[in-house]
């Protein structure tokens, strides 16, 4: 055996019990065996206890009729759908609120983070107060604050607040007209895609020209003109196929149009404003982490403060910012499970209902854990790609 070979090669080691390589191999094997045995032991115990207590087990329930309704359904769902579909609806709701929250938190967080470094005393202090308040209050309280705030301040449906463009605001949520696309509206979509492709091409050529000749081209305004102008042109040419479905007053509430419920709104605001406070600190640390000599060198080359920030400081700051930013995105996604307190049907809420209606707690919790794990792994995977692209490229 391997141990004997080692003994022959290095007789000075003495007994194989003292061989560090054998020892480390032995203890690693021992740990692996212990780990798997305990996992097996737990699984076995659970199955045995469930049988002893006459509790149904297995995942067969996923194909049964759910029987309950869900308020926010991004995909078609009725009480006749299966438990599985109910769980998918919950997962999609979690993804929607997490994705929207990440975008909003990033925008607010960057604004506040840069604001904390502003030369303006008032802006700097306001941003500091914001960070200190939201960072130091538990997210659940922030959620309750928004939800109770929304319900307490807004009027009942019959006295809805009228906003411009046929929008309404009341206790039941925020309503705005929904675009109804008529015949030939595909032309507008095609025009938009075409405009984006052209804008990208212009940017690419402009970069090449700048590298070759040093001359700059107004890429930004050209792109805006293309992306706005082409779809508008297509809209006019195809005979204006766009109409709007306006929200109208009915017996209990407004119907028609697009409806954002207060549960979603308050969860989104609470999660993004809470996480934004942390992102702001990360951004501030990132900018502070860029050596002062960098901006001084940029100034010496004749760059003004705007381009210095955009071209010199922020690209270097991003390397420091992205890894902790990933953690904040993961936190936001996981904090979205607090939705249960205000009745937004996210994964935790729907899985909880499924768990309760079927009584299969072990399976329900298992599904929830796997779903959040996969969500988080996907988020970190994407952020790792972003990080790799942003990382310092050595030349």
């Amino acid at each position, binding site marked *: 055996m391997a141990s004997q070979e080692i003994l022959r090669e290095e007789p000075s080691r003495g007994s194989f019990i003292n061989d560090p390589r054998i020892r480390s191999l032995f203890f690693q094997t021992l740990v692996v065996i212990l780990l798997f045995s305990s996992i097996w032991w737990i699984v*076995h115990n659970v199955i045995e206890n469930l049988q002893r207590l006459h509790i149904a087990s297995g995942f067969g329930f996923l194909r049964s009729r759910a029987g*309950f*309704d869900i308020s926010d359904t991004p995909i078609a769902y009725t009480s006749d759908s299966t438990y599985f579909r109910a769980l998918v609806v919950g997962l999609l709701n979690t993804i929607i609120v997490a994705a929207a929250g990440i975008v909003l938190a990033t925008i607010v967080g960057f604004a506040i983070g840069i604001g904390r470094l502003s030369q303006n005393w008032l802006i700097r202090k306001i941003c500091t107060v914001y960070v200190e308040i939201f960072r130091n209050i538990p997210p659940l309280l922030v959620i309750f604050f928004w939800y109770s705030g929304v*319900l307490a301040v807004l009027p009942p449906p019959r006295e809805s607040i009228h906003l411009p463009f046929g929008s309404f605001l009341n*206790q039941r949520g925020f309503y705005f007209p929904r675009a109804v696309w008529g015949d030939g509206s595909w032309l507008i979509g095609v025009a938009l895609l075409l405009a984006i492709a052209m804008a990208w091409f212009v940017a690419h050529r402009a970069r090449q020209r700048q590298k070759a000749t040093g001359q700059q081209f107004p890429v930004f305004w050209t792109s805006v003109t293309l992306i706005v102008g082409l779809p508008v042109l297509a809209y006019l040419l195809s005979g204006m196929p766009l109409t709007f479905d306006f929200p109208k007053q009915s*017996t209990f509430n407004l119907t028609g149009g697009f409806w954002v419920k207060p549960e979603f709104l308050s969860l989104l605001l609470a999660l993004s404003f809470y996480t934004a406070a942390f992102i702001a600190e990360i951004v501030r640390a990132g900018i502070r982490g860029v050596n002062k000599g960098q901006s001084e060198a940029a100034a010496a080359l004749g760059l003004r403060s705007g381009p210095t920030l955009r071209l010199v400081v922020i690209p270097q700051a991003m390397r420091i910012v992205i890894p902790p930013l990933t953690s904040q995105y993961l936190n936001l996604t996981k904090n979205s499970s607090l939705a249960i307190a*205000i009745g937004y049907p996210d994964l935790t809420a729907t899985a909880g209902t499924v768990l*309760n209606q079927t009584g299969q707690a072990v399976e329900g919790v298992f599904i929830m854990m796997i779903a959040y794990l996969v969500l988080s792994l996907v988020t970190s995977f994407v952020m790792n790609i972003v990080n790799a692209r942003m990382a310092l490229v050595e030349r």
Partner: protein
Amino acid sequence: MKHIAIGILGVAALGFMASAASAGTLDTVKQKGFIQCGVSTGLAGFSAPDDKGDWKGIDADFCRAVAAAVFGDGSKVKFTPLSAKERFTALQSGEIDILSRNTTWTSNRDSALGLDFVGITYYDGQGFMINAKKLPGVNSALQLSGAAVCVQSGTTTELNLADYFKKNKMEYNPVVFEKLEEVNAAYDAGRCDAYTTDQSGLYGIRLTLSSPADHVVLPEIISKEPLGPAVRQGDDQWAHIARWTYFALLNAEEAGITQANVDEMKASTDPNIQRLLGTEPDGKYGADLGLSNDFVVNIVKAVGNYGEMFERNVGSGSPLKIARGINALWTKGGLQYGPPIR
């Protein structure tokens, strides 16, 4: 290699240890000296803490009755408030000994959840409540198409609601919360047009709203909700104790035994009452259950008979003022019927 073998043996030993059988609930309860009773987080008339922190209501009193049967002392109960979602897991895992929490008896819960229902302490049905001031002209649940309806998650209520609106081809918007207080707060704040739960619950919740007089309970009853206590499946002795505590409450009312006259009744020569109160010579109906022979005396002394329990908590002696209706004894045209103790 020897070390690994010892390691494996150790782990295997751990695995074997874990499958030790659990003792009967009666023995465990006697050993710890109290009954752990799962109740709601606060539903007036069924289980709600009063201003001194004492749990009041039919469901709370039922646990006191079981404690009186076991210990001869109705105060040997500890209450665990549970949300609808937590209740079954709490009972399955042994965190509580008895679940007395306005829980509907259904086939699925009886067969697949490892529960055993004891009886029906309250015959209920699901109804709707609306704010009549905000919604004048609505006097039937069939007018609720398009309404936002507040409901607690993980209940049969949630399922009945979906079935009722589907059956009547109406639309609705469910607003679902996990905790009763959250549903109440959202309904009170005007988040929903209607509130649905068991009708008895609606009367209780109405009292806790900011202006109870504005709210009306609609006449429709859309489901059968037989509410009763449940115990873990597989412990027959404990199930018998809970079940016969319930029957004893009914039989005491039928025989006219009340909290006030129970001591006089012990002198009765009526063999029926003698058997019930354990005064029959050589009778051992209590001992057969694993209790003392005068367990019914203890129960009635602690909480009264079923009728007294009802009137005190949800009936004329309470702010809810619910009529006995189908919860009257079978001798008075109701459904409550206790099999004989003999």
